[in-house]
């Protein structure tokens, strides 16, 4: 008779697929960001944009004019970009930085998931938050305006479509910025400051330089110009801006995708070492 040590074999268990595993990270990340900062930014955005849109539509319905233009009014403003920037910075700054700083990224990446899944999950979580902030108020305002008879159903639906188109482009753009800047630091505060700093300084610099050089092509690097141009087109209005809306949308989406790819590249080279 011989005695041998037991050999452990994992019991076969049905495992969910890669998408479900990634989605579980998205869910946790969305919940994780449900803190005072992001929620306050979200409430502020919803309150300002919804009220602004509803009031604008109401007065337009009284005095006459383009209802679609009334729906579009807030999105043409610098304030909308600023609100999106606040939401993005509060939601996205810590997305990767927190995990890198605390080294809890190790807990995820020592599991059978790919770095691509991890970054995609983080991107999705940020994107969903920004999308809710970008699209939600417009949808509510459209619903309220249609319900109260200030706007026709077709105008309200067009407004929802416009919000969705602009919201998607904005979400991709800001998600990319958040991921890229959150991947280069271990502190979410630095990432947050960097998100504000980079966006505002590039916007200001481009405005000044394009004004001096009278080169309209430079405006494609200006967030406000791009957003205004896309908003006009998304709401079905003739654009008075020098930038082409399709090109503006392409620039913003491409910027977001490239920056997200840079974040992935950065993480693939980062090594989670001790403080």
């Amino acid at each position, binding site marked *: 008779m011989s005695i041998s040590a*037991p050999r452990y*074999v994992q019991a076969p268990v049905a495992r969910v697929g890669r998408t479900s595993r990634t989605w579980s990270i998205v869910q946790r990340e969305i919940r994780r960001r449900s803190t005072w900062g992001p929620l306050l930014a979200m409430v502020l955005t919803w309150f300002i944009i919804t009220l602004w849109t509803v009031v604008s539509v109401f007065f337009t319905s009284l005095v006459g004019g383009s209802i679609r233009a009334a729906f579009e009014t807030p999105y043409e403003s610098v304030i909308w970009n600023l609100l999106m920037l606040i939401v993005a910075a509060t939601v996205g700054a810590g997305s990767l930085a927190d995990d890198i700083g605390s080294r809890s990224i*190790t807990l995820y990446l*020592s599991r059978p*998931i790919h770095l691509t899944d991890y970054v995609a999950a983080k991107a999705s979580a940020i994107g969903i938050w920004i999308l809710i902030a970008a699209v939600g108020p417009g949808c509510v305002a459209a619903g309220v305006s249609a319900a109260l008879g200030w706007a026709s159903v077709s105008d309200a639906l067009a407004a929802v479509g416009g919000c969705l188109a602009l919201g998607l482009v904005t979400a991709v753009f800001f998600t990319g910025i958040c991921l890229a800047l959150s991947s280069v630091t271990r502190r979410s505060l630095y990432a947050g400051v960097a998100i504000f700093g980079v966006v505002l300084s590039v916007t200001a610099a481009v405005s000044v330089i394009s004004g001096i050089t009278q080169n309209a092509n430079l405006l494609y690097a200006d967030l406000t110009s791009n957003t205004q141009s896309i908003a006009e087109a998304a709401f079905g209005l003739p654009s008075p801006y020098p930038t082409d809306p399709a090109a503006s949308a392409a620039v913003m989406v491409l910027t977001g995708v490239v920056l997200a790819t840079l974040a992935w590249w950065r993480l693939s080279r980062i090594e989670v070492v001790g403080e």
Partner: protein
Amino acid sequence: MTGVVEAEAVTKRYGEVLGLNGFSATFSEGITGLVGPNGAGKSTLYRLLAGQLKEDAGRLTLLGYPAWGQGEFRRRVGYCPESPALFDWMTGRDFVTTLLRVDGFSRSEAADRSARALEEVDLTADAHRRLRVYSKGMRQRVKIAQCIAHDPELILLDEPLNGVDPVGRAALSGLMRRLSASGRHLIVSSHVLYEVERLTDQIVMIANGQAIAQGDLHRIRDLIDSRPHVIDLESPDPRALARALGGWDHVVSLEFPAPGHLRILTRSPDSFYRDLPDLVLREGVTVKAVRSADDNLDAVFRYLSEGRR
């Protein structure tokens, strides 16, 4: 027999600093202790095994797979990092369940396994509390729970007993022994030899990024014991204590480093610890504290490292 983990001349640099310096060792089945002083390279090795670092040179495999990367074989590996950082906004139950979901378990399966793992580490009562309010020992235990919840074949525990109270240590040691008895392989690191000694006879000693000794603990102990050990004693009457100890063969020297303190050098610490209680009772001398300077293994590792040069 090939090892569960095999390292061949693994080198890892952090810029100018060498984390591992040609580390070669074979970790066999069952429990293997990885013992070394702080800064020896234990956590670097664990991060390499967890796929979080890539070796600069050499070859490192676990369960036959290259350690670098996030392949599906990771399902067969459980990793408990030394870092106390957790997802503080989660409850203990959420934490374990979330990581099980990332492992690919369905929602209900993850919930069941999470409950079982938390029970194993005696955290069921605190499972609903947020991790930010957990004590250091509880954090250690919840980290171990996430590490074993998916029934891994190979379990990597980096300083698992650090910060755990004596009762918790005994319970976790029992858990490790049970896991090993069921056929799983464990690599348990510690900077305290005596901690690992209670778990296993198989150890790998690491210092300055190199494996300085590996194999059966008793052989390594013999090696260590061939060198005199320093033991500090605290007593209201150190001279009386010195007189009593002076007759012991294995005591090489006695000195009084400070009032109320006696430092002895012994060739047989095991005999010393075994016979000291009898001596105290027989001679009526008072010993307020016993500290082995060699409990901090720095000295031993320095000795072994020097022996290799």
